[in-house]
């Protein structure tokens, strides 16, 4: 796999072009999903797919660090569903299901959302009525590239939450929210540099390659360690510089 996917449609392949090629992509993705998951994860994924189909989903993909084989201690099992969100709150474990209807899928894709592109470029497509295939075609034919703008626009509000948690002294919560905000900023920076952001654990290295070492190091530390409140404040200041926001006001 390309460790630093750049702004190109070359790595999208041509699977969307004909039925046989698309079937091969689906078969390959299903084999890959089997290979990258543990037995328990596979069982969980089967349940998610069954429940998604039962409520009328037309497409389901396994996404995120699992499919990149870069899970960390805090990784979720991530899914992208086109259709109603399946109910999974009774199931144990860390799971994140992004669900949208068909209209929202297209609005997000053409509006520059990177998560939809992530699913199509890197995800393991498990079920598809052809909407994922059509989405991939749209990326290739229309030359769609995600827009980092919305991520940067959401950063000030997100940083305010981190500031509130730091002021309260809730180190665990502050770290979780700061890590999320750093991840979002990292993806925005990479997209702006025309580098497609991969799994969270891969972002520090991708950031280093585009000259954003400080942001990458702050993210790495919040993924791999348990920094003090003082260190978290310092990383929030790094983030503020990226977002051009004064978090202390």
């Amino acid at each position, binding site marked *: 796999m390309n460790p630093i996917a750049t702004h190109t449609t070359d790595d999208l392949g041509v699977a969307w072009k004909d039925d046989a090629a698309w079937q091969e992509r689906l078969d390959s993705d299903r084999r890959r999903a089997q290979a990258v998951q543990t037995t328990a994860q596979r069982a969980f994924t089967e349940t998610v797919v069954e429940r998604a189909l039962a409520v009328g989903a037309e497409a389901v993909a396994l996404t995120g660090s699992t499919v990149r084989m870069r899970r960390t*201690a*805090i990784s*979720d099992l991530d899914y992208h569903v086109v259709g109603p969100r399946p109910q*999974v*709150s*009774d199931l*144990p*474990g*860390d*799971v*994140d*299901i*992004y669900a949208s209807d068909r209209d929202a899928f297209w609005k997000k894709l053409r509006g520059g959302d990177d*998560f939809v592109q992530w699913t199509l470029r890197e995800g393991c497509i498990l079920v598809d009525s052809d909407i994922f295939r059509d989405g991939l075609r749209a990326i290739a034919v229309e030359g769609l590239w995600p827009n980092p703008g*919305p991520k940067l626009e*959401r950063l000030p*509000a*997100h940083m305010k*939450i981190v500031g*509130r*948690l730091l002021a*309260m*002294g*809730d*180190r*665990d*919560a502050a*770290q*979780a*929210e700061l890590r*999320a905000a750093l991840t*979002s900023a990292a993806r925005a920076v990479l997209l702006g540099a025309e580098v497609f952001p991969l799994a969270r654990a891969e972002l520090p290295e991708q950031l280093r390659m585009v000259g954003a070492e400080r942001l990458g190091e702050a993210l790495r530390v919040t993924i791999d360690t*348990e920094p003090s409140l003082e260190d978290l404040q310092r990383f929030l200041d790094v983030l503020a510089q990226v977002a051009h926001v004064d978090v202390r006001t």
Partner: protein
Amino acid sequence: MSPKSKRELAREHLETAREDLEGGREKDVINALFYAAEAAAVALAEAHGVETKQRHGLKADAVTELHKKRVLATDYGPTLRELNQARKDVWYEGEDPDLDEPLADVLDEIEQLVEEAEKTQ
């Protein structure tokens, strides 16, 4: 200054959620309720020897386990998981809040969990 206990943090987050609810700041309510619930879950889990590490899912699993052990009369695990998904949708994806229950009802439920945590030593 010694760090605050999880029980104290749970109560503080809960009161923040109440203020946000009264102020009509729905997105902030979801976050504050989630962290109130998580802090209470960790306080209870630690008091009863259940591991949570730094994982959101394990904290939800812990309160479900404590319900199965009859430590808690209610299983708050599904609510924790719903709040976790809701805050990610809101803050990471820019979506509108989407919870099965009104926020005021969720706040009442989480307050019960916080009160359970406050009974622990």
